């Protein structure tokens, strides 16, 4: 069985265990064992760079852990994916920086080479569509809307995956579950989760725009594949309802909807505890 290290990122690690659980269950059906990453740290995201000129050490640390184990990485969150890929690009381009980073990593017994590939769950699943077809058991009779994780496609010079303005891959995967994907005006807009760090009002209004537009288009659920999207679109729905009381849209993680179409037990997908 192919093995990959699962890089959950601290938001999913801390709050959305159901996403990790479902991702592992679905990847296993696709022939991939998602191995836990020991001693993994925060990816650095866009949090650390303004505070530290050494920020690259943190993602390089995570990447070198994977290299030591000889595995490629599968990520669940957009920001982690972008930060890890940006780091790889910076270190491939700048030999001096790589040398400096390796001096820091030596202090914790590690070394960075640049050999571990980093792919988000959408990328991994979309490269296994034949296996998805083989595991398919039941057509899902529901209408869903999609929330595309910005950082999996953008910046496109770094991510080099899918269409940066109107991504298609998530749609292809969800199509394979038999669920009907409904288009909505705000589909390609950002969920706004990171704005929670500066203005809850902005974040809630960004989430409201998406939830309302999807609801009006007839969606019965929203499919997400990033912890941040789930955070603002689902966990903050109570606050959204303070502005627009009628909004109530279930939000489901990508591997949960795929898992349902594979006939995987709801409990194993974290849909029931």
């Amino acid at each position, binding site marked *: 069985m192919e093995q990959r290290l699962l890089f959950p990122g*601290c*938001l999913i*690690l*801390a*709050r959305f*265990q*159901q996403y*990790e*659980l479902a991702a592992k269950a679905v990847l296993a059906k696709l022939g991939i064992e998602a191995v*836990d*990453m*020991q*001693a*993994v*740290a*925060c990816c*650095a*995201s*866009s*949090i*650390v*760079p*303004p*505070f*530290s000129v*050494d*920020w690259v*050490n*943190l993602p390089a*640390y995570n990447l070198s852990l994977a290299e030591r184990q000889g595995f490629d990485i599968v990520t669940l969150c957009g*920001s982690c994916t*972008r930060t890890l890929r940006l780091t790889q690009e910076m270190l491939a381009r700048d030999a001096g920086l790589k040398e400096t980073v390796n001096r*820091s*990593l030596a*202090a*914790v017994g590690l070394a960075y080479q640049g050999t571990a590939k980093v792919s988000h769950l959408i990328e991994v699943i979309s490269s296994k569509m034949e296996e998805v077809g083989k595991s398919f058991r039941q057509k899902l009779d529901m209408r869903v809307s999609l929330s595309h994780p*910005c*950082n999996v496609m*953008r*910046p*496109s*010079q770094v991510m080099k995956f899918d269409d*940066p*303005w109107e991504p298609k891959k998530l749609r292809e995967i969800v199509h394979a579950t038999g669920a009907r994907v409904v288009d909505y005006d705000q589909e390609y*807009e*950002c*969920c*706004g*989760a*990171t*704005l*929670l*760090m*500066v*203005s809850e009002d*902005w974040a809630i*209004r*960004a989430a409201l725009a998406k939830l309302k537009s999807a609801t009006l288009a007839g969606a019965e659920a929203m499919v997400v594949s990033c912890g941040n999207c789930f955070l603002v679109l689902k966990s903050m729905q109570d606050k959204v309802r303070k502005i627009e009381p009628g909004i109530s849209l279930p939000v489901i993680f990508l591997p949960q909807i795929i898992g349902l179409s594979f006939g995987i037990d709801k409990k194993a997908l*974290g849909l029931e*505890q």
Partner: protein
Amino acid sequence: MDCTKCSICRSRCLVERLGGASITSVLNEAAEKGAWNCSNCWKCIDACPQEFDIYNAIIEKRRLEEAPRAYREAFAGICRNGYIFPIEELNTIREMWGLNKIELVGPEVIRKLIKEC
């Protein structure tokens, strides 16, 4: 290449649409501050016809502006134990979900990697 102040990035920015001022306003001299006002969507970068390095412009500008409280707390969290979100009870919660326990990184490693910690 240099920024030509064409405002294209600004027209794609979520913060601007919500009525705020982001780095895209700063670049276009419509505001002095705003680098922290950002949803990390990177539409500005993909939209820029000059391929101007907006990412580093954001980081450099953030280093000059006062960080919002949530960012300062997030950075403090990373320094404290390696993660932004509270993670102390992690392995108990993982067990409840039937997930294996995992080893956490700890502050010693972080302090060796990020000297500002």
